């Protein structure tokens, strides 16, 4: 059953962000961390609100993970931390995707529940890392969405695809979510196809990021008249594989020219 999380009101988001701007050490924010804020609200959709104990447990788990990566001192192995945090957030929060699409939910996590962790991961963060401006950049929100779009409960490790793409490439997928990026089935199979090409050496000698973006561009061109979501996995993989190979070939041809 989905759990409802509080959303931090916008005025409060700006006020807290401004207040924390003078913080020199994330440890200073530990005492500010809380499970409650008067300006945190719940949407009026029936459901079960998250209990304070559960918020406490979530914050404690995240801090344990952060300590393994340097917290409260300088962050180390941040890519590994992000992948582990994506698993943790997605695996424990029980938040509905429509709730997770709310930027204010993530602002509550970064400004009220775990400001110390947020400021540790991104010291002197730009607003979009901790505020409600861009979910693809948010310290916590972007990781939950990465996990949501790649997790596959039929696999022994549902989150194994998290390591296929780096943050920048995943942002490309998420930015095109209206066309291709918001279907877990498509994203999962896209990553499978890409990893298969990489493992078989098909991507050797090409600029992988350029080729990946070229594939996304080609997909965007065809989705108005192709319903990729209507396909079963086999047909979808075949279509994505064909598109990916075309993109790689085009990049190779351009390099040769």
């Amino acid at each position, binding site marked *: 059953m989905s759990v409802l999380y509080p959303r931090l009101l916008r005025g409060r988001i700006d006020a807290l962000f401004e207040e924390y701007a003078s913080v020199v050490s994330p440890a200073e924010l530990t005492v500010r961390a809380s499970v409650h804020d*008067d300006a945190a*609200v719940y949407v009026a*959709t029936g459901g079960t609100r998250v209990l304070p104990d559960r918020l406490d447990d979530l914050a404690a788990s995240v801090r344990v993970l952060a300590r393994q990566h340097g917290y409260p001192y300088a962050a180390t192995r941040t890519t590994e931390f992000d992948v582990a945090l994506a698993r943790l957030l997605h695996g424990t929060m029980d938040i509905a*995707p429509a709730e997770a699409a709310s930027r204010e939910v993530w602002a509550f996590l970064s400004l009220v529940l775990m400001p110390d962790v947020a400021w540790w991961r991104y010291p002197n963060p730009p607003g979009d890392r901790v505020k409600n401006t861009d979910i693809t950049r948010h310290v916590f929100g972007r990781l939950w969405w990465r996990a949501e779009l790649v997790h596959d409960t039929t696999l022994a490790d549902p989150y194994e695809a998290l390591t296929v793409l780096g943050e920048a490439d995943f942002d490309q997928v998420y930015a095109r979510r209206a066309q291709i990026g*918001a*279907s877990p089935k498509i994203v999962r199979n896209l990553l499978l196809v890409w990893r298969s090409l990489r493992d078989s050496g098909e991507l050797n000698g090409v600029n992988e990021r350029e080729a990946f973006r070229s594939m996304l561009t080609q997909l965007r061109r065809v989705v*108005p008249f*192709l319903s990729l979501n209507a396909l079963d996995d086999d*047909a979808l993989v075949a*279509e994505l594989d064909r598109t990916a190979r075309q993109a790689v070939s085009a990049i190779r041809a351009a390099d040769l020219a």
Partner: protein
Amino acid sequence: MTRVAYPYLRPHQAAVEPSAWTLVLGDEPVVLPEALDTWDYNLDLRLRRSIRVDVETIRAQCRLPEEAVLDVCVVWRSSGSGLFGRAAAEHLTEPGVAELDLEVVIPGSVVGGVLDIDTVVVLATPCARVDPLAPWRAGSMIWEQRSSIRLQGDASQFPISVIDFAGTSLPEGAAWHLQISGSLESAAMGSLLLLVNARHKQVAEAFGNAGKPRPVDRLVLSAVHADIARVMVEHALASDEFDDDAEYDEETLGAMLRDVFVRVFGQRTVKDVRLRAKDNPSLVATEVQAAVNIFGGDR
């Protein structure tokens, strides 16, 4: 759907004839409404429709090769979650005319906002390019039709949580409890929470059936509604900060209490009602009943 210039032949729209979608709430199907204000993430959407597909006409008009495999599918997209998904897929294996009954369940946990439900006929696999104008790529949309439903209201709904009171400090025998917390400047929707005791079968069922209440459910919901208004009025009157001169920002608890107060007492002053409540609290409670038209009584 956005008008698209398809790079392949498509059949006449009449080659596919769907019935209207019906939404199954409880045991009884209803024509898919435009909005379902009582929906929440825990309510899966069960939809049914029948569809008649003239496969022979489609194959001829699209110049498809014999081996082309067609599917009729139901895919959805939610504005709330931004997610897409496939809810059903049926192979159109027989030649001639296919008549199918589609039944889909879309999990409430993955949707929200406006839900678009597309019924599509697609090429299920790629096929030989025997004709330059024929569709050949897997997923080519031969026919489609969209229906939509708005799942969430305008945020004016009351936050509700159905829980077992046994696990709380609330009396186990109670049926509901309105929790009000925070100052009058706090955000209203974060300050109010209606807790419904899951063990209280009649009341829990009434909330479960709120989308299509039975007569008995209407009575229960009306009683709860009146009680909520009474508790809010009492909360307002008990707060020294709630007075005639106070100004509250929009969407604060103070603004919501003021709204309820005005709806119940009209132009009467807070001071006047507070004095009345002190002298005769039961009469004020009865005035609330009348103002909310408890049980839908004629006035």
